[in-house]
Each structure stands twice: as structure tokens, then as C-alpha cells.
């Protein structure tokens, strides 16, 4: 019995941290394709570009852990950055004031999500699909076919550095740390995992499941608007397509990082960090390897498919192992 036991523990350990193994695999094969891929500069670039998706994916992870989903992060990013841009243009607000407006609008948008999902009891997929469409329309109404570009003060943050490390990475690291502490070191975080694992048991255990899910959605919205602000700080302007498709990137990053769509399983660090950087790595790696433009989306889709396939093999194996030990119904 112990012989096969050892074999299983190795396989289990390997499957437990698939995100890390995949990350290393990708990193090596892209490195071989383009020799100077390994320089510190290109790694720093990959993480910098992945930071805005990473921040949004961290917010998305909260919602996925409670077993829900949030398709409206893209529109949230768009609406909050447009609102902040308008405040700068019209009222000449300084940088940090625009930042607070951006986060404020993000939280209000997310609060409507939370209200619809917890109070009106509409299922998350549909509620956030509706707010995605409505939010994008609202943003366009504010925009009124005016171009929004951010002033120097903010765009300089995008490329500025703090102790030699670009601002976006610093912010991303701070967000990851905050999220990790909230999830592992606060009661609210433990209750997020509990609600995600079994909502009914959580309710019976006396957890205020409504408040927990609501705060998860609000945080997801706040992080989405923060991610939006970081992205605009790098880009310099907001056009009508800003944020479209970010919801799928964020979900892909979280799932690549090992967070299960069914709730209760997965970690922020190193999970979401690896997931976000992996997605960015694939697209920039393909460009630097001068691969034909038309093949890019097909290759990145295949890599994500492989990652998710490995992850689901892991759940099947865990299930089989679990089955043998516990015999109750």
C-alpha cells in the first residue's frame, strides 16, 4: 500500500502547483525561441504589462472563491476611468482626487452588482452580464463622443519608478499582499472560502452569507477600477473599446492560477500572480519570437486549454484519492 502511496504523493504534489510548473515551462520554451528573453528587463516588462490584469484578476478571485462570477469588470474599468478623466478635464482635479473618483465610481458600480445579486437574488452570470452592457452604455453617454486623455501628472506615474521598480508592479505587489492578508489573516477571508465551499452550511454556521458575497463583489469592482486606472496611467488615453474583453482575461488568469470556477478552492499568491503573468508572457513571447500575426490567438488559446485540462485532471485524481479514504455516503 505504501509503495503506490509514495507515487501518489509525488503526482499529487506536482498537480497541486500546476500553475508554477506551467509558468516555468512557458518561460523556458519562450526563452529558447528568443535568446535575450531571459534578461531582467524583459521579465520586468512582462510583469509590468501583466499588472493591470493581475489587479483585476485578484478582485475576480474573491468573487470566484464565493462560487460567483463577475462579467462586468471590463465595463467597470471603462466607466470609472471615463468618469475620472471627465473630472480632470472639466473640474481640473489633481491626480489623487481623480484616483479617488475612479475608485468611488468602481465601488458604486460594484455595489449595484452586489445589490442585484444578494437582494434581488438574480444569478451572478446574468446580473453581471446585464450591468456589463448597461455600464458600457453609461460610459459612452458620459463620453458623448469626446476624446478623454489623461494629463502628464498621471501618465508619468505609468512609467515612473519607485526604488527602481516601475509603479504598476509596486501597486500590483501591494494589492496581492493586501488580498493575501485579507483572505488568510482575516475572518472575512476565511468566511469567503466557507461560503464558496458550501453556501448552505455557511448559513447554518451563522455566517452572514449575504454580507460576505456583497463585500466580495464590491471589492472586485474596486480592484477592477484600480486596475483600470493603472492601465490608463500607462496608456495615456481612454477610447470606447477600453476594458472590453478584460473580464475574460481576468477569469483566464485566475483559473490558470488554480482558482476553481466552482468556488472554495485556489489561492491569490502565487496563483493569480502566475496566471496573470503567464497570459502576458504568452502574447509578448509570441511577438518577440516573430510568430505570424494570424497564429497568435490560436496559440494562446491552445496554451490556456492545456493549462485548464491539466488542472481538471488534478481535480479528478484528488477525487479518486479522496474516495478511497472516506467511506460515508
Amino acid at each position, binding site marked *: *500500500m505504501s509503495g*503506490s502511496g509514495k507515487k501518489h504523493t509525488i503526482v499529487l504534489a506536482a498537480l497541486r502547483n500546476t500553475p508554477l510548473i506551467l509558468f516555468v515551462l512557458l518561460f523556458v520554451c519562450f526563452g529558447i525561441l528568443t535568446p535575450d528573453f531571459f534578461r531582467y528587463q524583459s521579465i520586468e516588462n512582462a510583469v509590468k504589462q501583466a499588472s493591470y490584469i493581475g489587479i483585476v484578476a485578484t478582485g475576480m478571485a474573491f468573487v470566484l472563491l464565493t462560487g460567483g462570477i463577475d462579467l462586468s469588470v471590463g465595463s467597470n474599468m471603462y466607466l470609472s476611468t471615463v468618469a475620472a478623466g471627465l473630472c480632470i478635464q472639466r473640474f481640473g482635479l489633481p491626480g489623487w482626487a481623480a484616483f479617488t473618483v475612479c475608485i468611488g465610481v468602481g465601488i458604486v458600480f460594484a455595489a449595484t452588482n452586489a445589490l442585484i445579486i444578494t437582494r434581488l437574488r438574480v444569478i451572478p452570470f446574468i446580473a453581471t452580464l446585464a450591468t456589463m452592457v448597461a455600464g458600457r452604455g453609461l460610459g459612452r453617454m458620459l463620453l458623448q463622443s469626446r476624446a478623454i486623455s489623461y494629463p502628464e501628472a498621471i501618465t508619468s506615474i505609468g512609467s515612473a519608478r519607485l526604488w527602481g521598480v516601475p509603479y504598476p508592479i509596486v501597486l500590483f505587489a501591494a494589492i496581492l499582499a493586501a488580498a493575501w*492578508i485579507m483572505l488568510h*489573516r*482575516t*475572518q*472575512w477571508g*476565511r*468566511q469567503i*472560502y*466557507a461560503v*464558496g*465551499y*458550501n453556501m448552505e*452550511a*455557511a*448559513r*447554518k*454556521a*451563522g*455566517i*452572514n452569507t449575504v454580507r460576505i458575497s456583497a463585500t466580495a463583489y464590491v471589492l472586485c469592482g474596486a480592484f477592477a477600477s484600480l486596475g483600470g486606472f493603472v492601465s490608463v496611467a500607462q496608456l495615456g488615453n481612454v477610447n470606447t473599446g477600453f476594458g472590453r474583453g478584460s473580464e475574460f482575461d481576468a477569469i483566464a488568469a485566475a483559473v490558470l492560477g488554480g482558482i476553481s470556477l466552482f468556488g*472554495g*478552492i485556489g489561492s491569490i499568491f502565487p496563483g493569480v500572480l502566475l496566471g496573470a503573468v503567464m497570459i502576458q508572457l504568452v502574447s509578448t513571447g509570441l511577438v518577440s519570437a516573430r510568430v505570424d500575426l494570424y497564429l497568435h490567438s490560436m496559440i494562446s488559446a491552445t496554451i490556456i486549454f492545456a493549462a485548464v485540462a491539466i488542472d481538471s485532471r488534478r481535480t479528478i485524481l484528488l477525487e479518486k484519492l*479522496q474516495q*478511497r*479514504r*472516506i*467511506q*460515508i*455516503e
Partner: protein
Amino acid sequence: MILSGELIHFGNITKEFFGIRALAGITLSMPSGQIVGLVGENGAGKSTLMNVLGGVFAPDAGSMIWQGRPYSPEGPADATREGIAFIHQELNLFGNLSIADNLFIDGFPRVRRLGVLKRGTANRLARQRLEAVALECPVNTPVENLTPGEQQLVEIARALGRNARLIILDEPTSSLTQNERERLFGLMNELRKGGCTLVFISHNLDEVLRMSDRIVVMRDGCVVSTGEKREYTVERMITDMVGRQINNLYPEKTSRASEEVLLRVEGLSRSGTVDDVSFVLHRGEILGLFGLMGSGRTELARILFGLDSFSAGNLEAIGRPLGGHKPAKSISRGLAFVTENRRDEGLLMEGTIESNVALAALRRRAFSRWSVWIRGGAIRERTLRTAGELRLHAADLRRQPARNLSGGNQQKAVIAKWLLTEPKILILDEPTRGIDIGAKYEIYTIMNNLAAEGAGILFISSELEELAATCDRILVMSNGRIHGEFSRGAFDEKAILEAAFEGLRIGGTKR
């Protein structure tokens, strides 16, 4: 400070579900520092009353007095705050979290201002609580790796942690091994000495008699009788519960095993669960398979039916070999499998009763042309007939969802599902678990009739009394191996139990 008077008093509590009166005016009081045995058939209202007490439901009428003060909880959180802990049959634990997290999930020791939890103090308190329930496990093991017994102790530890004055145990022993039961009973006695009141709900009447100080018997939503332990015996409890004299719990055994072999199993094994199992099932025979939790009975059944594969040995059903097969093939060869858990693997709760009953037999020529086009009429007629035979009471078979049926009727629906496949070999895994005495009697009768008509029945159970009364032969299984075979007339309860424990003592390894 233990209040010598009443701990909890129910005044005329009534509760109605979908027009059925679950609680019809209950007036009852429980003193502190005692174990109260609460017994009654399924649907008698035991769980509903406890759910009202535990704040899961609000009563339609009536009032409760807790420690002298009026008490009406909105939700489970209020009940917990008042010191009432409810330990459900399906435990309320979070597999993905550690033991310490589960213990403090709704009340972590925290740094006042920041709300950040003090991990150190949490682990220390958790260790203390585990010692109180004599569970030696590292505090950060995820709960999904614990055995059911250990999980139950964690649940009790959590209740104690909130200095619970009243602990409700709903069917606590149904999934425990024998020594885990002894450990639980010891803990219950200690809690009682410490002044706690325990409500012990169980179908195992011997255990209730052994442990409780007072007994409360409920039937059809009201309290039929209550009193000290010494006024009660198992027979009286049954009479009160069922309300009519059951001279015998088990119907007269009519069928006799013939020589013809229906199922032959030789050297069947699968790593880690079943090891070199061999037996034979004859036509018309009811073969009992006794074993405690964790002995591999359910795994054996799943392998026979094709749900799991097996690494060695061979299988023969009605003369033809069977191997590497899927449930669909087993059904076509005449096997049927009533699973242990009817809610998860037995029924489509949201589906209608008729769609449930017809589900397994759709491919048969009687119910579909070339197993593609459904014969609606034939299905409707046969479902009506079988439901009548099994005395399955339902308002409207065609539109009523299965979730609206009582426990006993749900089990009959599952059996009806398998009867439609005209099975020759029936595997029944704990068919009478969690249903009332009346429904049990009817299920034993059905088994007898099927055996009489020439089917072979493999009856898996952890209640020896039930097997002794209905089976021709009993195989005893433990630790994945068959340790003994006893035929009718030579049933010696002590020897069977010893065989059941043998695997555990020698094996000793806790898988």
C-alpha cells in the same frame, strides 16, 4: 451557574409545510444537565422541532422559553449566541479549511482594531478544544482528510467552544465505527456531568435507551409520550412511535434459496478497497453483507455494478462473464443497485416521479422502440401499476417532483425505478437507512416477494438485527476482505460482530 429548573420550554409550537402540519401544537420542557432521547418515525417532526429550536425555521405559532426568558431566533446565529448548538446528520464543516478555521469560522480571536486574526491564539485555543473531545490531530489539517468520526468530534468541539448549554445531535452514530461510537457516548456522559443538556435523535433505539435519562416519543407532529428511561423498553417505544401494535418488525420469511447460481464472484480485488473477495449468490436467496463503516461494502457493490473498475478476479452474472463493464451493461444483464444515498445517487429530486421511475429502464423494448423512441403510454401504465404494488402514495405521479415525497416514499420510488428493469440480481445498499419503521416493514416485504419470484438479493447493512431477520446467509466483511460466513439457523450475533471487528484489530491501520 446551572439552573436546576427548566432549560427550555416549548409552548404549543405549530409549523406547516405545503399544507402538511409538520408540528401540531407541541408543548414540552427539558431540564438542564440531562440527555433527552428524542425518537419518532420519519416525518414525525423531530428534525423540524429541532430546526425551530436551532433558528433554522421560524414557527407559525407558539412560543419558546429559554432559561426563563422568551426566545425567538431569526437565524442560526441567534440560536448559537444563546448557547444552542445543532449538529446535523450531514456535518456542517468546510472541507477546504483547516480544523482551527472550522472551529472559529464565525468568531475568530482578533486584534481589536484591525480585525486581523491572531493566528497564534486561534491555534492554541483550537488545541485546547480538541483535547476536550480527545481528538489528537494537528490543528491545521484540512477537514476533508479526517474520517467521519473525527469530523463529528470537530463539530462537537465547535459547539463546546461557544459554551453551548444545549447540544442537539441528529443521527450522530449513523456513520461511526463501533469504537468511535463508544468514544462519542463517553464524551456525552462527560458533557452531561458538566451541566450540558443533550438532545439525542436516533433510529437506533437500543443506543437511545442506553444513553438517555428521559425519552420523548413523537408521532405525526405531536408528542405521544414522555418519561424517565426506566419506564421505557424498545417494544413500548416502537408501539408509541407507530401507534399500532407491530407484533413483529420483520415479515415472515417465505422464500427459500435454490441451488441455481445467479452471481459468482472469484478473487475480486481493487487496490486499497477490496481484497480477494469471493462469494456466490443463488436464485431466490437473500444474501446479507454485514460490515462496519469503512469495511469496503459500498466499494464492492460499486465494483459489481460497474461504477468502479477492479484490478483482479472475475465476475459471472447468470452464467455469462462480466468485466470492465459500465452500469448500462449491468442493467441489461439484470443487475440493479439501490444506492446508499437516495438524495445524491438515487433520485432526480427536481424531476417528476414518473420520469424518475422510468429512468433506468428506458432502453428496454417495453418502454422504447429500438431504445430510441419512448412509448409514453407503456411507461405511464407500468409506473402506475408498480407504484400501486409498492403502495407509493403520491398526489400526481406525472407532475409532482420527487422532492415533495416523504423519506419512505422516496426509497420506494428508487426501488420502483429498479423494478421496471426486471432485475434478476438486486444489490441493496442500506435500503432502510433513515426511514421509519412502517416503511422498513414494507421494504422487507418487497424483498421477500422479489426473492420468492426468483431474484437474488445482496442486502448490505450495518444493522445486524435486520440482516438476521431477513437473510438466508450473512457474509461479514471488514477491511476489504470477507472474514466469515454464517448461514440461517447458525446466526450468532457475538461471532458475527467479532468477525466484523477482526479486520480492524489485526489491520489496525487507520486508512
